């Protein structure tokens, strides 16, 4: 999933302050799963904003709506009348959702309520970890299913740096050394030879370095 966390409420207050009517638009997919932008979070934020504006003796009308996915035009349409009724949309979606809205509603103000963080998983209840950088060129097969590009703080491809101690990374004693995990797992799989192989410099052209990327499926284009 794409994970995100809500912006500090005071930053959100500053964002919505210029508007009289604001639609808080939740997204029912990834950010709902990581407790930052689903229906529940929309309700809490709406309530907190109402309280905060009342306290400031300021008037604001807040409408709440959560759609299935903000990154798909089909679902976005469900929000069109709500968006039309309001002066601004505060989107509780990832950056893709915010931009998808902005693309669809050219004349409407779309504001981000979340900080998009990473592609990750819920490792244990309430703890989300980053697993993939979307580099566009997956090498998980040789690394035993553990990504050094994402999970090594130095993106090392040819083994751990000198800062790996007792299984943890030098940058944070709570972060597992990805290379330690890779070595453990490849040992279990009997594939340690993978690590004797020299890994050449990575081609970053398929990642963000190549500029914004595009995925084209010719068979779906009419």
């Amino acid at each position, binding site marked *: 999933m794409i994970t995100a966390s809500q912006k500090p409420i005071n930053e959100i207050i500053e964002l919505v302050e210029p508007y009289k009517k604001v639609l808080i638009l939740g997204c029912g997919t990834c950010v709902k799963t990581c407790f930052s932008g689903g229906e529940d979070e929309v309700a809490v934020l709406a309530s907190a904003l109402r309280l905060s504006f009342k306290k400031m003796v300021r008037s604001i009308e807040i409408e709440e709506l959560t759609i299935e996915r903000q990154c798909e035009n089909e679902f976005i349409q469900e929000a069109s009348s709500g968006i039309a009724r309001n002066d601004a949309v505060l989107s509780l979606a990832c950056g893709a959702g915010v931009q998808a809205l902005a693309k669809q509603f050219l004349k409407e103000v779309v504001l981000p309520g979340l900080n998009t963080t990473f592609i990750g998983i819920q490792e244990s209840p309430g703890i989300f970890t980053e697993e993939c950088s979307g580099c566009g060129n997956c090498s998980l097969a040789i690394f035993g299913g553990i990504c050094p590009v994402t999970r090594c*703080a*130095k*993106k*090392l*491809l*040819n*083994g*751990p*740096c*000198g*800062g*790996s*101690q*007792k*299984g943890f990374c*030098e*940058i*944070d004693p709570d972060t597992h*050394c990805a*290379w*330690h995990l890779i*070595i*453990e797992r490849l040992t279990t799989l009997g594939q*340690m030879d993978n*690590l*004797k192989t*020299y*890994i*050449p*410099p*990575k081609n*970053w052209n398929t990642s963000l370095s190549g500029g914004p990327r595009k995925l084209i499926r010719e068979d779906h284009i009419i």
Partner: protein
Amino acid sequence: MKTFSHLHENLLQGKFVVTGECGPPRGANKAVIDKKISLLKGYVDAVNVTDNQTAIVRMSSIAASAHLVAAGLEPVMQMVVRDRNRIAIQSDIMGAYSLGIRNILCLSGDHQKFGSQPDAMNVFDIDSVNLVRTVRDMREKGKDMSGFVLDVAPQMFIGAAANPFADPFEYRVIRLAKKIDAGVDFIQTQCIYNIDRFKEWIKRANDEGLTERVYILGGVTPLRSAGMARYMNNKVAGMDVPSDIIKRMDGIGKKNQADEGIKICLETIEVLKELTGVHGVHIMAIEWEEAVAKIVEQAGLK
């Protein structure tokens, strides 16, 4: 055989070499470099010039190395892959060579999180193994990474680091082999305080025949105080200062702790001199260059 630097020449002749370290200043003051040069010259075969070590912004290692060249002291220019992409790396290697720099030490670099500007974006376009290979390919094939044939290709003596004290221990020798395969000529190790673990590592390297393919310089850092010993053990990534060393420093009066630190350092060097597979010592007297002359003289390495 072609020799790439004086350091290389000395190692080829079978001399037990000594390298020192010079950390460039946090500023543009060349006088700081000059002072360190005067303290080290005549005592060491070459001097590592660090590259924004611990991710604290300093005078560039290329510029500081060039100052050493001009003063007749051979530098080992350190280069980290943290701050440069492959374009800048290759360009800097060419520039360094044109300035008379003949040794390079290829490193990943300390993570910027601990540095003076943790908000910085890191690069890590290529890793240190690929940096070694890049310098090697320039030297052996005369080409840059794109395969472009260089007019004058840098001919550098190539070093890398090894940390026998980092985990997972089993992988440390594999990683050494990988660096050797990539084309490294010499290795400087992390500071040795845990001599038993170092012996185990060098034994494994000997068993694998690695020490015949690469020169290994054991790293030592004289401890200035018990506090420093504790700090290095607890705060410096990848450092292993055993508790008996800390105890030994603790047992000495504050005034004499620095002397004790030098004594420990000399004892370590004595052990290193006798070890098969160790070809020299790398003395990292961090902001304590005065200690180097003393250590070199007392260890009989001058």
